[in-house]
């Protein structure tokens, strides 16, 4: 598929700020399932800083905006050619070994309920890949998709107790239960093309990757009960949502911040 992305994020401050600094992970990953045809990242009125590919294979760009500033807009636009690899992250180059993703961070700390969920789900599995699929299905069954039920800092344990959440919560819960089952697992942020008003889908999306020996990293989108295919664009990864965030930023000054996001992902068949 050819996916077209247009993504604008605007931070507005209640008072002029002395300046802002951002670290952006907004460039599509390079692997066999996707290739950017054209891609632009721009911080309006900003100064481009250093850019590099990090140990997890993500392209990172630093930006800064001089003050006084009342508003910062990050614009992303481009076209990506995608292929359905059934979730397998083939041909992706990275230095960080899978073993570095065996430990929980705060939002993926497992509680008794997550441990029970993982143990029950994985019980009848025939092999590791099957076990990973069963974990994703169990997380999907335990947490219903409902926007607004959770917030940015909700943990996997909290979302499971609530029984509701969004893609971030599904991903955190799947990472936590994968850890319980002995898998290395991580959080992935990206975009998703939605061809219908199919409910459980968000254009700015997130899912989990689980390491299966012999196959490598495999994406699991528990929120949509599937593995990422050619409707998905992968941007970057981390142990949790905060680490994998496409935009990390800080504005210096007394003002409070409000956020406005507009994402559109369109598709054209080749």
């Amino acid at each position, binding site marked *: 598929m050819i996916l077209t992305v247009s993504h604008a994020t605007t931070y507005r401050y209640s008072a002029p700020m002395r300046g802002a600094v951002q670290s952006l992970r907004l460039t599509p990953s390079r692997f066999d399932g996707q290739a950017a045809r054209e891609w632009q990242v721009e911080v309006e009125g900003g100064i481009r*800083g*250093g850019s590099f590919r990090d140990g997890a294979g993500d392209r990172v760009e630093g930006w800064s905006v*001089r003050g006084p500033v009342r508003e910062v807009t990050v614009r992303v636009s481009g076209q990506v050619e995608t292929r359905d690899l059934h979730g397998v992250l083939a041909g992706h180059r990275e230095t960080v070994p899978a073993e570095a993703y065996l430990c929980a961070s705060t939002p993926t700390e497992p509680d008794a309920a997550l441990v029970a969920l993982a143990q029950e789900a994985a019980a009848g599995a025939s092999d590791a890949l099957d076990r990973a699929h069963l974990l994703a299905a169990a997380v999907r069954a335990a947490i219903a998709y409902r926007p607004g039920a959770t917030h940015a800092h909700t943990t996997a344990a909290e979302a499971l107790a609530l029984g509701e959440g969004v893609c971030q919560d599904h991903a955190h819960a799947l990472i936590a239960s994968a850890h319980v089952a002995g898998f290395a697992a991580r959080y992935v942020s990206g975009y998703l093309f939605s061809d219908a008003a199919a409910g459980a889908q968000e254009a700015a999306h997130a899912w989990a990757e689980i390491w299966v020996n012999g196959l490598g990293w495999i994406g699991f989108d528990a929120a949509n009960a599937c593995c990422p295919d050619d409707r998905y664009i992968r941007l970057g990864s981390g142990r949790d949502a905060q680490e994998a965030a496409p935009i990390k930023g800080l504005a210096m000054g007394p003002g409070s911040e409000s956020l406005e996001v507009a994402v559109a992902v369109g598709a054209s068949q080749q």
Partner: protein
Amino acid sequence: MAIEFFNEMYQGSQVRAPYARLEDWMRAMPAEFRQMKQAEAEALFRRIGITFAVYGEGGDPDRLIPFDMFPRVFTQVEWHRLERGIKQRARALNAFLLDVYGRGEIIRAGRIPARLVYQNAAYERAVAGFTPPRGVYSHIVGIDLVRTGPDDFFVLEDNCRTPSGVSYMLENREIMMRMFPALFRENRIEPVDGYPDLLRRTLASVAPAKCEGEPVVVILTPGHFNSAYYEHSFLADLMGVELVEGADLFVEGGFVWMRTTEGPKKVDVIYRRIDDAYLDPLCFRPDSMLGIAGLMDVYRSGGVSIASAPGAGVADDKAIYTFVPEMIRFYLGEEPVLQNVPTWQCGKPDDLGHVLDHLAELVVKEVHGSGGYGMLVGPRSSAAQLEAFRARVIANPGNYIAQPTLALSTTPTFVNEGIAPRHVDLRPYCLVGERIELVPGGLTRVALTDGSLVVNSSQGGGVKDTWVLAE
């Protein structure tokens, strides 16, 4: 159980050669004169305001650490061996860091378990795949040593992040020279005052490739409330570089800039005295107010160097320590010059069994502890203390390591009753940049309490001037 302690000055009634002149000095000193000098030394330390605790020791930050005037002495031959061992260790630790943030050969070769490295809290995924200038991660390696015999030295621990205490090495010497100038004419003592210049040159030698001209080096401090602030400002002063806090720096255009009265000035090398977690709120702890937002992006794109490199801490963890001799063999193809203290990992069932059976003979420490806290010295503990500690170890074995109670050497020390042997350790500071340098000396810590083996200043330890005699 009577333990024989090696006395560095006396062997029986014989005075060992390096201390021969000090014997005369000591005998010729009347008690009143000694007390006067001791008071003078204390007044000098107070005047310069050096009152901080050695890294991680805790305790009251404003308390004066006792200074003992009796120097600790090494011969040239003894020092040469230490120097070889320390430099060897510093090279191996840096090779290890370069490896585990790169291809991880030592893990692939099965010489160190992957878990200890990649699941270590000090392993930073954020710097994997990035090679710092000259491949150096730990630019100042503080290696804590103890001596148990004429030729027996053991490494207690490695400090690869920001080992502190070097200002004591410099001040102890300064004060001794001021108070006893004759001693320095009678003995030929290797100087240590070249350290600040060597440190500056070491840091300048790891400036990033993008740096043009003379590298600008700064020391980044968490601020004056930090217990080692004195050392930060002292070193900045002696090195002739700026002492800055996070708010004095900012990033723009892929570089780090320092605010000055003449406008922004580009910074090439940051000698940071703050922990990884606080360096950059965009990369590490988002609530940190001490660091510089965006610093890690500049660092990883080659715009600035950071010493020690973020992530260096994975090499000095107590669980990794056990494998340093293996690192020396693996990376350098050499046998270790300095030995590790034999260490049992309580997380291993066999080791745990041994530790619980021999608790009364061992020293047991927390893997991540420091400062002599959370530690059991078996031979000096009551039955109740032993049982309480046993329960803690059983509850969380992976959190503890155990070592034999080392017979730390003693050196003569001025005490209320006159002169008496007290136990000592040694922390030399090895500099790693374009070259590996070691000034002949270090920080000797002394346990001032009779019989105590704990030299930490938070537990009644003091410091001494450390001499290496020129031949």
